[in-house]
């Protein structure tokens, strides 16, 4: 018995921690690189709808977003349905055509992601789609969440 005790007493049990800052820095750099801070401020309220048969868009650089939903007013109230592209609310539907056409010239493989509130009436969406057809930006994607089973 004494023999075993002697052996266990001799082993050193310290884990070397000198490499920990390196590991932490590596993780830090990873997260710094992957972080995308939100670049647009949403001025419309959007609650996504969900669907089962969805696909991922891998090339994020190609995507341009159009937000459609009730406008956020002061005091947390919701107004009429509005269309937002980049940072601005679009008052005149005809402006979408020129805006999107300019974007298409910059990026010929443009995908337009429509982020629409689930209670929006289809009339507005159809109008936006018509404008997109006029602008020839025909690749679209209805942004939805994955349906929870």
């Amino acid at each position: 018995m004494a023999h075993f005790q002697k052996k266990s007493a001799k082993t050193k049990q310290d884990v070397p921690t000198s490499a920990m800052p390196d590991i932490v820095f590596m993780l830090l750099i990873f997260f710094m690189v992957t972080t995308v801070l939100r670049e647009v401020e949403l001025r419309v309220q959007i609650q996504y709808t969900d669907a089962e048969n969805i696909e991922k868009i891998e090339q994020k650089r190609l995507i341009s977003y159009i937000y459609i939903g009730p406008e956020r007013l002061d005091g947390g109230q919701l107004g009429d349905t509005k269309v937002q592209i980049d940072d601005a609310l679009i008052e005149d539907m005809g402006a979408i055509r020129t805006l999107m056409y300019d974007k298409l010239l910059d990026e010929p493989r443009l995908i337009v992601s429509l982020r629409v509130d689930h209670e929006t009436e289809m009339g507005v969406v159809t109008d936006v789609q018509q404008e997109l057809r006029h602008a020839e930006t025909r690749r679209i994607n209805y942004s939805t969440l994955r349906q929870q089973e």
Partner: protein
Amino acid sequence: MFKNKRSREMGEINGSSLADIAFLLLIFFLVVTTIDIDTGIGLVLPPIPDDIEPPPVHERNMMRILVNASGMIQMDDDPVSVVEVKQRVKDFIDNPTNDVNLAESPQDAIVSIKTDRATEYNIYIDMLDEVTGAYNELRDAASQAQFGVPYSSLDDDSEQQDLIREQYPKQLSIAEPDEG
């Protein structure tokens, strides 16, 4: 005299708190990061028709899905519920019994979705989801039969994928909105 003083001032910066600072930054970025992948239903809108007449489509090759403002669905002339849609679309495209009222072949089949202006968006997406689901299931079945793997595990833009896509081309038509 000065020399002596300088050598005394040389000290090491204490590096033990470096890990703490790094941890703090790490936690900040962990909290701020949202790795959100864009998911959704992809679609290619039809071009604006020039004055050229669209090619004639046989009545039997066209599946008309109408959705009204209160979310009621009509396919070809029958009212249906949402749960029936997928099966009916699959039957229409594949037409296993060679019914004269259903599509001649999957290549000819066109599914057209039309909604009222007051229809809610999520009903439209549900509809689109069901139709996309029908196509996915048909493609999966074809891929399973020919290559032994589901469609989704084929490589993107591979020959096999093209083959299946040719077999079941997704021809969705978003109907022209009514004037006024």
